[in-house]
Protein backbone atom coordinates (compact mmCIF):
# COMPACT_ATOMS: atom_id res chain seq x y z
CA UNK A 1 0.00 0.00 0.00
CA UNK A 2 1.45 3.35 -0.95
CA UNK A 3 1.97 6.03 1.62
CA UNK A 4 1.00 9.47 0.42
CA UNK A 5 2.72 12.32 2.21
CA UNK A 6 1.33 15.77 2.87
CA UNK A 7 3.80 17.12 0.36
CA UNK A 8 2.43 14.80 -2.31
CA UNK A 9 -1.10 15.92 -1.50
CA UNK A 10 0.04 19.52 -1.81
CA UNK A 11 1.72 18.70 -5.07
CA UNK A 12 -1.44 17.06 -6.39
CA UNK A 13 -3.44 20.03 -5.19
CA UNK A 14 -1.21 22.44 -7.07
CA UNK A 15 -1.30 20.15 -10.09
CA UNK A 16 -5.07 20.22 -10.07
CA UNK A 17 -5.04 16.45 -9.72
CA UNK A 18 -6.33 16.15 -6.20
CA UNK A 19 -10.03 15.72 -6.95
CA UNK A 20 -12.78 17.75 -5.38
CA UNK A 21 -12.74 15.99 -2.00
CA UNK A 22 -9.03 16.26 -1.57
CA UNK A 23 -9.11 19.86 -2.72
CA UNK A 24 -11.63 20.75 -0.08
CA UNK A 25 -9.74 18.86 2.55
CA UNK A 26 -6.55 20.65 1.58
CA UNK A 27 -8.37 23.98 1.84
CA UNK A 28 -9.57 23.01 5.32
CA UNK A 29 -6.05 22.07 6.31
CA UNK A 30 -4.51 25.18 4.81
CA UNK A 31 -6.91 27.26 6.79
CA UNK A 32 -5.76 25.89 10.11
CA UNK A 33 -2.22 24.76 9.51
CA UNK A 34 0.39 27.50 9.46
CA UNK A 35 3.17 25.11 8.50
CA UNK A 36 1.18 23.76 5.59
CA UNK A 37 0.42 27.27 4.39
CA UNK A 38 4.10 28.00 4.37
CA UNK A 39 4.78 24.82 2.43
CA UNK A 40 2.00 25.66 0.03
CA UNK A 41 3.45 29.10 -0.58
CA UNK A 42 6.92 27.61 -0.96
CA UNK A 43 5.74 24.99 -3.41
CA UNK A 44 3.89 27.57 -5.42
CA UNK A 45 6.96 29.81 -5.48
CA UNK A 46 9.22 26.95 -6.38
CA UNK A 47 6.79 25.96 -9.08
CA UNK A 48 7.02 29.42 -10.52
CA UNK A 49 10.78 29.32 -10.36
CA UNK A 50 10.76 25.94 -12.06
CA UNK A 51 8.42 27.25 -14.70
CA UNK A 52 10.73 30.15 -15.43
CA UNK A 53 13.67 27.84 -15.54
CA UNK A 54 11.86 25.32 -17.67
CA UNK A 55 11.58 27.88 -20.40
CA UNK A 56 15.30 27.51 -20.71
CA UNK A 57 15.60 23.82 -19.93
CA UNK A 58 12.97 21.12 -19.47
CA UNK A 59 13.26 20.55 -15.74
CA UNK A 60 9.85 18.97 -15.36
CA UNK A 61 9.89 16.86 -18.48
CA UNK A 62 8.06 13.63 -17.83
CA UNK A 63 8.30 13.76 -14.05
CA UNK A 64 5.88 14.64 -11.30
CA UNK A 65 5.64 18.12 -9.95
CA UNK A 66 7.26 17.05 -6.69
CA UNK A 67 10.13 15.39 -8.52
CA UNK A 68 10.52 18.56 -10.53
CA UNK A 69 10.68 20.61 -7.37
CA UNK A 70 13.30 18.33 -5.90
CA UNK A 71 15.39 18.57 -9.03
CA UNK A 72 14.93 22.31 -9.15
CA UNK A 73 15.99 22.70 -5.53
CA UNK A 74 19.10 20.75 -6.28
CA UNK A 75 19.91 23.13 -9.10
CA UNK A 76 18.92 26.45 -7.64
CA UNK A 77 18.86 28.02 -4.21
CA UNK A 78 15.65 29.89 -3.51
CA UNK A 79 16.20 33.13 -1.60
CA UNK A 80 14.07 33.08 1.56
CA UNK A 81 13.00 36.69 1.31
CA UNK A 82 11.21 35.90 -1.92
CA UNK A 83 8.65 33.66 -0.22
CA UNK A 84 5.43 35.50 -0.89
CA UNK A 85 2.47 36.24 1.29
CA UNK A 86 0.16 33.22 1.44
CA UNK A 87 -2.50 35.04 -0.51
CA UNK A 88 -0.09 35.63 -3.37
CA UNK A 89 -0.54 32.19 -4.87
CA UNK A 90 1.53 31.46 -7.92
CA UNK A 91 0.42 28.82 -10.36
CA UNK A 92 3.12 26.34 -11.32
CA UNK A 93 3.97 25.78 -14.93
CA UNK A 94 2.40 22.40 -15.49
CA UNK A 95 -0.92 23.57 -14.07
CA UNK A 96 -0.90 26.74 -16.08
CA UNK A 97 -0.34 24.83 -19.27
CA UNK A 98 -3.61 22.96 -18.87
CA UNK A 99 -5.74 25.97 -18.03
CA UNK A 100 -8.09 27.46 -20.58
CA UNK A 101 -8.21 30.72 -18.60
CA UNK A 102 -5.37 33.26 -18.62
CA UNK A 103 -2.68 32.59 -16.03
CA UNK A 104 -3.59 35.63 -13.95
CA UNK A 105 -7.27 34.68 -13.86
CA UNK A 106 -6.43 31.20 -12.68
CA UNK A 107 -4.26 32.68 -9.96
CA UNK A 108 -7.13 34.84 -8.78
CA UNK A 109 -9.54 31.90 -9.00
CA UNK A 110 -7.38 29.69 -6.79
CA UNK A 111 -6.87 32.51 -4.33
CA UNK A 112 -10.60 33.25 -4.38
CA UNK A 113 -11.52 29.62 -3.77
CA UNK A 114 -9.13 29.33 -0.85
CA UNK A 115 -10.37 32.62 0.57
CA UNK A 116 -14.03 31.62 0.14
CA UNK A 117 -13.62 28.24 1.78
CA UNK A 118 -11.60 29.82 4.56
CA UNK A 119 -14.20 32.53 5.12
CA UNK A 120 -17.06 30.02 5.23
CA UNK A 121 -15.44 27.52 7.51
CA UNK A 122 -13.26 29.66 9.75
CA UNK A 123 -16.22 30.76 11.79
CA UNK A 124 -17.24 27.16 12.38
CA UNK A 125 -13.68 26.22 13.09
CA UNK A 126 -13.22 28.81 15.76
CA UNK A 127 -16.61 28.25 17.31
CA UNK A 128 -15.83 24.54 17.47
CA UNK A 129 -12.44 25.27 18.91
CA UNK A 130 -14.02 27.53 21.47
CA UNK A 131 -16.31 24.75 22.54
CA UNK A 132 -13.47 22.44 23.29
CA UNK A 133 -10.12 22.21 21.69
CA UNK A 134 -7.94 19.38 22.93
CA UNK A 135 -5.74 21.93 24.62
CA UNK A 136 -8.65 23.52 26.41
CA UNK A 137 -10.18 20.35 27.68
CA UNK A 138 -7.01 18.61 28.65
CA UNK A 139 -7.11 19.54 32.30
CA UNK A 140 -8.23 16.73 34.53
CA UNK A 141 -11.08 17.42 36.91
CA UNK A 142 -9.80 18.41 40.31
CA UNK A 143 -11.74 15.75 42.13
CA UNK A 144 -10.52 12.83 40.08
CA UNK A 145 -8.23 10.22 41.52
CA UNK A 146 -4.79 9.44 40.07
CA UNK A 147 -4.43 6.45 37.79
CA UNK A 148 -3.75 3.10 39.37
CA UNK A 149 -2.82 -0.28 37.97
CA UNK A 150 -5.77 -2.60 37.64
CA UNK A 151 -6.71 -6.08 36.67
CA UNK A 152 -7.35 -6.35 32.93
CA UNK A 153 -8.88 -9.81 32.86
CA UNK A 154 -12.40 -8.68 32.04
CA UNK A 155 -11.49 -6.15 29.47
CA UNK A 156 -11.99 -7.12 25.86
CA UNK A 157 -9.05 -7.06 23.53
CA UNK A 158 -10.74 -4.44 21.40
CA UNK A 159 -11.36 -2.16 24.36
CA UNK A 160 -7.70 -1.42 24.32
CA UNK A 161 -6.00 -0.16 27.42
CA UNK A 162 -3.85 2.00 25.23
CA UNK A 163 -6.11 4.56 23.59
CA UNK A 164 -5.93 4.29 19.81
CA UNK A 165 -7.10 7.87 19.48
CA UNK A 166 -5.16 10.39 21.48
CA UNK A 167 -6.14 14.01 21.35
CA UNK A 168 -3.31 16.39 20.59
CA UNK A 169 -1.75 17.99 23.66
CA UNK A 170 -3.91 15.75 25.80
CA UNK A 171 -2.11 15.74 29.12
CA UNK A 172 -4.99 14.28 31.08
CA UNK A 173 -3.84 11.13 32.79
CA UNK A 174 -6.30 8.36 32.18
CA UNK A 175 -6.05 5.12 33.98
CA UNK A 176 -7.57 1.77 33.19
CA UNK A 177 -10.95 1.04 34.66
CA UNK A 178 -10.92 -1.52 37.44
CA UNK A 179 -12.81 -4.77 37.02
CA UNK A 180 -15.93 -3.48 38.68
CA UNK A 181 -15.93 -0.32 36.61
CA UNK A 182 -15.39 -2.37 33.47
CA UNK A 183 -18.43 -4.40 34.21
CA UNK A 184 -20.47 -1.24 34.46
CA UNK A 185 -18.85 0.21 31.33
CA UNK A 186 -19.64 -2.94 29.34
CA UNK A 187 -23.27 -2.61 30.34
CA UNK A 188 -23.34 1.04 29.39
CA UNK A 189 -21.65 0.32 26.04
CA UNK A 190 -24.22 -2.37 25.26
CA UNK A 191 -27.00 0.01 26.21
CA UNK A 192 -25.55 2.80 24.08
CA UNK A 193 -25.15 0.53 21.06
CA UNK A 194 -28.70 -0.72 21.40
CA UNK A 195 -30.54 2.48 22.07
CA UNK A 196 -28.37 5.50 21.54
CA UNK A 197 -25.92 4.87 18.73
CA UNK A 198 -26.96 7.00 15.78
CA UNK A 199 -25.12 4.92 13.23
CA UNK A 200 -27.50 2.71 11.33
CA UNK A 201 -26.42 -0.84 10.50
CA UNK A 202 -23.32 -0.69 12.62
CA UNK A 203 -24.48 -0.78 16.26
CA UNK A 204 -25.37 -4.48 16.06
CA UNK A 205 -22.19 -5.28 14.18
CA UNK A 206 -20.14 -3.39 16.73
CA UNK A 207 -21.83 -5.27 19.54
CA UNK A 208 -20.89 -8.65 18.05
CA UNK A 209 -17.43 -7.49 17.14
CA UNK A 210 -16.77 -6.40 20.71
CA UNK A 211 -18.13 -9.60 22.16
CA UNK A 212 -15.75 -11.69 20.04
CA UNK A 213 -12.62 -9.79 20.94
CA UNK A 214 -11.76 -11.63 24.13
Amino acid at each position, binding site marked *: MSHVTKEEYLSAFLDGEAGSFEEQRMCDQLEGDELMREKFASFALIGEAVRNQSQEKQVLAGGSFLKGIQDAIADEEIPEQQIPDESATVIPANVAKRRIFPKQAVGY*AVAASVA*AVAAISIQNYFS*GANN*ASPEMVATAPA*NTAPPVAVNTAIMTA*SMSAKPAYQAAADDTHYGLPDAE*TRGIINKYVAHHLQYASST*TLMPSVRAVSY*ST*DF
Partner: protein
Amino acid sequence: MNGRLWVGVVLVSLSAQSTASEVGANLLMKMNDALHRMDYTGTLVHIKGEDVNTLKVSHIVEGGVEKEVITSLNGSENAVSKERSSFSLAKVPQSIESMKKVYSLDVGGTKKVAMRDCQVVIARPKDKMRYLQKYCIDKETGLPLSYSLINNKHKAVERFTFTQVEIHASNNKASVEQTAAVANVPPETILPGGSPSANWEVTELPKGFYFGQVPASQNAEVQKGENTDHFILTDGLSSISVFISSNTTVQPKVTSAINSGALNVLTSQKNNHRITLVGEVPRATMQSVFQNLKYLGE
Protein backbone atom coordinates in the same frame (compact mmCIF):
# COMPACT_ATOMS: atom_id res chain seq x y z
CA MET B 1 -13.01 42.44 -15.06
CA ASN B 2 -10.87 40.42 -12.71
CA GLY B 3 -13.17 41.28 -9.83
CA ARG B 4 -16.20 39.93 -11.71
CA LEU B 5 -14.41 36.76 -12.56
CA TRP B 6 -13.41 36.43 -8.92
CA VAL B 7 -17.00 36.72 -7.73
CA GLY B 8 -18.19 34.39 -10.48
CA VAL B 9 -15.76 31.67 -9.51
CA VAL B 10 -16.81 31.94 -5.87
CA LEU B 11 -20.53 31.79 -6.75
CA VAL B 12 -20.09 28.79 -9.04
CA SER B 13 -18.07 27.07 -6.34
CA LEU B 14 -20.70 27.71 -3.67
CA SER B 15 -23.52 26.63 -5.96
CA ALA B 16 -21.77 23.36 -6.75
CA GLN B 17 -21.21 22.74 -3.05
CA SER B 18 -24.86 23.36 -2.31
CA THR B 19 -26.01 20.93 -4.99
CA ALA B 20 -23.61 18.24 -3.78
CA SER B 21 -24.88 18.77 -0.27
CA GLU B 22 -28.50 18.24 -1.32
CA VAL B 23 -27.64 15.11 -3.30
CA GLY B 24 -25.61 13.81 -0.37
CA ALA B 25 -28.46 14.46 2.05
CA ASN B 26 -30.92 12.62 -0.20
CA LEU B 27 -28.57 9.67 -0.48
CA LEU B 28 -28.21 9.48 3.30
CA MET B 29 -31.99 9.51 3.69
CA LYS B 30 -32.30 6.79 1.06
CA MET B 31 -29.65 4.78 2.91
CA ASN B 32 -31.45 5.13 6.21
CA ASP B 33 -34.65 3.91 4.60
CA ALA B 34 -32.96 0.98 2.81
CA LEU B 35 -31.32 -0.26 5.99
CA HIS B 36 -34.69 -0.79 7.62
CA ARG B 37 -36.76 -1.71 4.56
CA MET B 38 -34.59 -4.12 2.61
CA ASP B 39 -33.84 -7.77 3.19
CA TYR B 40 -30.13 -8.42 2.92
CA THR B 41 -27.60 -11.08 3.77
CA GLY B 42 -23.88 -10.93 3.34
CA THR B 43 -20.38 -11.00 4.68
CA LEU B 44 -19.13 -7.87 6.36
CA VAL B 45 -15.58 -7.05 7.39
CA HIS B 46 -15.18 -4.81 10.41
CA ILE B 47 -11.76 -3.21 10.81
CA LYS B 48 -10.78 -1.18 13.84
CA GLY B 49 -7.14 -0.35 14.28
CA GLU B 50 -5.30 -3.58 13.61
CA ASP B 51 -8.24 -5.78 14.53
CA VAL B 52 -10.20 -7.37 11.71
CA ASN B 53 -13.45 -9.17 12.31
CA THR B 54 -15.49 -10.91 9.64
CA LEU B 55 -19.20 -11.27 10.22
CA LYS B 56 -22.22 -12.84 8.59
CA VAL B 57 -25.07 -10.37 8.53
CA SER B 58 -28.71 -11.16 7.86
CA HIS B 59 -31.56 -8.65 7.98
CA ILE B 60 -35.15 -9.58 7.23
CA VAL B 61 -38.33 -7.58 7.65
CA GLU B 62 -41.34 -9.62 8.72
CA GLY B 63 -44.62 -8.08 9.69
CA GLY B 64 -43.00 -4.70 10.17
CA VAL B 65 -40.45 -6.12 12.55
CA GLU B 66 -36.80 -6.14 11.62
CA LYS B 67 -34.95 -9.34 12.44
CA GLU B 68 -31.19 -9.28 12.50
CA VAL B 69 -28.77 -12.15 12.90
CA ILE B 70 -25.10 -11.26 13.10
CA THR B 71 -22.48 -13.96 13.55
CA SER B 72 -18.75 -13.60 13.81
CA LEU B 73 -16.74 -15.87 11.51
CA ASN B 74 -13.55 -15.41 13.51
CA GLY B 75 -13.69 -18.77 15.21
CA SER B 76 -16.18 -17.70 17.82
CA GLU B 77 -19.69 -18.94 18.26
CA ASN B 78 -20.86 -15.59 19.49
CA ALA B 79 -23.83 -14.19 17.64
CA VAL B 80 -26.45 -11.56 18.12
CA SER B 81 -29.97 -12.28 17.04
CA LYS B 82 -32.56 -9.71 17.78
CA GLU B 83 -35.79 -8.19 16.64
CA ARG B 84 -35.65 -4.45 16.28
CA SER B 85 -39.20 -3.41 16.92
CA SER B 86 -38.23 -1.29 19.88
CA PHE B 87 -36.84 2.21 19.89
CA SER B 88 -33.37 2.88 18.66
CA LEU B 89 -31.93 6.25 17.84
CA ALA B 90 -30.60 4.59 14.71
CA LYS B 91 -34.19 4.28 13.48
CA VAL B 92 -35.09 7.88 13.99
CA PRO B 93 -34.64 9.97 10.86
CA GLN B 94 -32.15 12.60 11.79
CA SER B 95 -32.60 16.24 10.99
CA ILE B 96 -30.67 16.88 7.83
CA GLU B 97 -30.77 20.63 8.38
CA SER B 98 -29.26 20.31 11.87
CA MET B 99 -26.68 17.93 10.52
CA LYS B 100 -25.65 20.28 7.75
CA LYS B 101 -24.72 22.93 10.29
CA VAL B 102 -21.82 20.82 11.45
CA TYR B 103 -21.09 18.58 8.47
CA SER B 104 -20.63 19.43 4.83
CA LEU B 105 -22.00 16.66 2.67
CA ASP B 106 -20.05 15.82 -0.45
CA VAL B 107 -20.81 13.33 -3.18
CA GLY B 108 -17.78 11.58 -4.61
CA GLY B 109 -17.29 9.16 -7.43
CA THR B 110 -18.63 5.69 -7.87
CA LYS B 111 -16.75 2.51 -7.11
CA LYS B 112 -17.40 -1.18 -6.74
CA VAL B 113 -17.82 -2.81 -3.37
CA ALA B 114 -18.83 -6.47 -3.15
CA MET B 115 -19.24 -6.45 -6.94
CA ARG B 116 -21.88 -3.75 -6.76
CA ASP B 117 -21.73 -0.14 -7.94
CA CYS B 118 -21.90 2.32 -5.12
CA GLN B 119 -21.81 6.08 -4.72
CA VAL B 120 -19.37 7.68 -2.32
CA VAL B 121 -20.90 10.17 0.11
CA ILE B 122 -18.78 12.01 2.65
CA ALA B 123 -20.04 13.81 5.74
CA ARG B 124 -17.13 16.09 6.45
CA PRO B 125 -17.12 17.69 9.90
CA LYS B 126 -16.71 21.44 10.05
CA ASP B 127 -14.82 21.25 13.33
CA LYS B 128 -12.79 18.74 15.34
CA MET B 129 -15.65 17.62 17.54
CA ARG B 130 -16.73 14.66 15.40
CA TYR B 131 -15.38 12.15 12.93
CA LEU B 132 -15.51 12.35 9.16
CA GLN B 133 -17.93 9.70 7.93
CA LYS B 134 -17.54 8.16 4.51
CA TYR B 135 -20.18 5.94 2.95
CA CYS B 136 -20.37 4.01 -0.28
CA ILE B 137 -24.08 3.64 -0.96
CA ASP B 138 -25.41 0.98 -3.30
CA LYS B 139 -26.70 2.79 -6.38
CA GLU B 140 -29.56 0.39 -6.89
CA THR B 141 -30.93 -0.10 -3.39
CA GLY B 142 -29.40 2.59 -1.18
CA LEU B 143 -27.81 0.11 1.21
CA PRO B 144 -24.41 1.21 2.58
CA LEU B 145 -21.80 -1.22 1.24
CA SER B 146 -18.90 0.36 3.05
CA TYR B 147 -18.62 2.85 5.87
CA SER B 148 -15.57 4.50 7.44
CA LEU B 149 -15.00 6.86 10.32
CA ILE B 150 -11.90 9.01 9.95
CA ASN B 151 -10.32 11.20 12.60
CA ASN B 152 -8.89 14.68 12.19
CA LYS B 153 -5.47 13.21 11.47
CA HIS B 154 -6.98 11.56 8.38
CA LYS B 155 -6.66 8.13 9.93
CA ALA B 156 -9.51 5.65 9.58
CA VAL B 157 -10.44 4.68 13.12
CA GLU B 158 -13.09 2.20 12.05
CA ARG B 159 -14.23 0.68 8.79
CA PHE B 160 -17.02 -1.63 7.70
CA THR B 161 -17.07 -3.20 4.24
CA PHE B 162 -19.28 -5.82 2.66
CA THR B 163 -17.27 -8.36 0.74
CA GLN B 164 -20.35 -10.17 -0.46
CA VAL B 165 -23.99 -9.17 -0.19
CA GLU B 166 -27.38 -10.14 -1.55
CA ILE B 167 -30.08 -7.52 -1.34
CA HIS B 168 -33.78 -8.01 -1.91
CA ALA B 169 -36.75 -5.74 -1.49
CA SER B 170 -38.97 -7.15 1.23
CA ASN B 171 -41.67 -9.34 -0.38
CA ASN B 172 -44.25 -8.58 2.21
CA LYS B 173 -45.98 -5.35 1.19
CA ALA B 174 -47.52 -4.95 4.63
CA SER B 175 -44.07 -5.31 6.15
CA VAL B 176 -42.69 -2.64 3.91
CA GLU B 177 -45.49 -0.25 4.77
CA GLN B 178 -45.21 -0.90 8.48
CA THR B 179 -41.46 -0.56 8.42
CA ALA B 180 -41.69 2.64 6.42
CA ALA B 181 -44.18 3.95 8.94
CA VAL B 182 -41.80 3.15 11.77
CA ALA B 183 -38.85 4.63 9.92
CA ASN B 184 -40.75 7.81 9.15
CA VAL B 185 -42.07 8.58 12.58
CA PRO B 186 -41.36 12.17 13.46
CA PRO B 187 -38.34 12.53 15.69
CA GLU B 188 -40.48 13.05 18.74
CA THR B 189 -37.79 11.63 20.99
CA ILE B 190 -35.45 14.44 20.07
CA LEU B 191 -35.59 17.38 22.40
CA PRO B 192 -34.15 20.50 20.79
CA GLY B 193 -32.77 21.84 24.05
CA GLY B 194 -33.23 21.93 27.77
CA SER B 195 -31.71 20.18 30.69
CA PRO B 196 -31.39 16.40 30.59
CA SER B 197 -32.01 16.02 34.28
CA ALA B 198 -33.43 17.91 37.21
CA ASN B 199 -30.07 17.68 38.95
CA TRP B 200 -27.69 18.20 36.07
CA GLU B 201 -27.26 20.52 33.13
CA VAL B 202 -24.76 20.90 30.32
CA THR B 203 -23.79 24.55 30.35
CA GLU B 204 -22.44 24.52 26.81
CA LEU B 205 -23.06 21.75 24.33
CA PRO B 206 -20.50 20.98 21.63
CA LYS B 207 -21.63 22.78 18.52
CA GLY B 208 -24.41 21.00 16.62
CA PHE B 209 -25.27 18.60 19.44
CA TYR B 210 -28.73 18.51 20.96
CA PHE B 211 -30.46 16.33 23.50
CA GLY B 212 -32.16 13.09 22.69
CA GLN B 213 -34.24 11.34 25.28
CA VAL B 214 -34.23 7.66 26.06
CA PRO B 215 -37.75 6.22 26.33
CA ALA B 216 -38.86 5.43 29.86
CA SER B 217 -38.80 1.66 29.29
CA GLN B 218 -35.16 1.68 28.20
CA ASN B 219 -34.27 4.16 30.88
CA ALA B 220 -35.78 1.84 33.45
CA GLU B 221 -33.62 -0.95 32.11
CA VAL B 222 -30.38 0.95 32.56
CA GLN B 223 -31.39 2.03 36.03
CA LYS B 224 -32.09 -1.54 37.06
CA GLY B 225 -30.40 -2.04 40.41
CA GLU B 226 -28.84 1.42 40.46
CA ASN B 227 -29.91 4.99 40.51
CA THR B 228 -28.62 5.94 37.06
CA ASP B 229 -29.61 8.76 34.74
CA HIS B 230 -29.04 8.28 31.03
CA PHE B 231 -29.30 10.97 28.43
CA ILE B 232 -28.17 11.25 24.84
CA LEU B 233 -26.50 13.98 22.86
CA THR B 234 -26.55 13.72 19.09
CA ASP B 235 -25.57 15.85 16.11
CA GLY B 236 -27.57 13.74 13.70
CA LEU B 237 -24.73 11.43 12.68
CA SER B 238 -22.83 10.90 15.93
CA SER B 239 -24.09 10.44 19.44
CA ILE B 240 -22.89 10.43 23.02
CA SER B 241 -24.56 8.64 25.90
CA VAL B 242 -24.07 10.19 29.32
CA PHE B 243 -24.67 7.92 32.30
CA ILE B 244 -24.77 9.50 35.75
CA SER B 245 -24.98 7.45 38.89
CA SER B 246 -24.55 8.24 42.52
CA ASN B 247 -21.25 7.17 44.01
CA THR B 248 -23.14 5.44 46.79
CA THR B 249 -23.45 2.50 44.37
CA VAL B 250 -19.96 1.86 43.05
CA GLN B 251 -17.02 4.16 43.70
CA PRO B 252 -14.88 4.73 40.60
CA LYS B 253 -11.23 4.49 41.52
CA VAL B 254 -9.76 6.31 38.56
CA THR B 255 -10.51 8.64 35.75
CA SER B 256 -10.38 6.12 32.98
CA ALA B 257 -10.71 6.13 29.25
CA ILE B 258 -10.92 3.25 26.84
CA ASN B 259 -11.22 3.15 23.12
CA SER B 260 -12.40 0.71 20.51
CA GLY B 261 -12.42 1.88 16.93
CA ALA B 262 -14.52 5.01 16.78
CA LEU B 263 -16.10 4.30 20.14
CA ASN B 264 -14.68 6.13 23.12
CA VAL B 265 -15.59 5.65 26.75
CA LEU B 266 -14.70 8.12 29.48
CA THR B 267 -15.40 7.54 33.15
CA SER B 268 -14.80 10.07 35.85
CA GLN B 269 -16.54 11.59 38.81
CA LYS B 270 -18.05 14.91 39.71
CA ASN B 271 -19.92 16.06 42.76
CA ASN B 272 -19.84 12.59 44.24
CA HIS B 273 -21.38 11.06 41.13
CA ARG B 274 -19.92 8.66 38.62
CA ILE B 275 -20.06 10.12 35.11
CA THR B 276 -19.62 7.74 32.18
CA LEU B 277 -19.67 8.95 28.60
CA VAL B 278 -19.94 6.53 25.68
CA GLY B 279 -20.00 7.60 22.07
CA GLU B 280 -18.64 7.48 18.55
CA VAL B 281 -16.90 10.84 18.84
CA PRO B 282 -13.33 11.95 19.59
CA ARG B 283 -12.37 11.93 23.23
CA ALA B 284 -11.91 15.71 23.23
CA THR B 285 -15.62 16.06 22.54
CA MET B 286 -16.40 13.90 25.53
CA GLN B 287 -14.04 15.92 27.68
CA SER B 288 -15.88 19.03 26.61
CA VAL B 289 -19.24 17.53 27.61
CA PHE B 290 -17.83 16.34 30.90
CA GLN B 291 -16.33 19.70 31.73
CA ASN B 292 -19.56 21.50 30.95
CA LEU B 293 -21.66 19.11 32.97
CA LYS B 294 -22.84 21.02 36.00
CA TYR B 295 -24.47 19.68 39.12
CA LEU B 296 -27.51 21.66 40.16
CA GLY B 297 -28.00 19.86 43.45
CA GLU B 298 -30.82 17.77 44.80
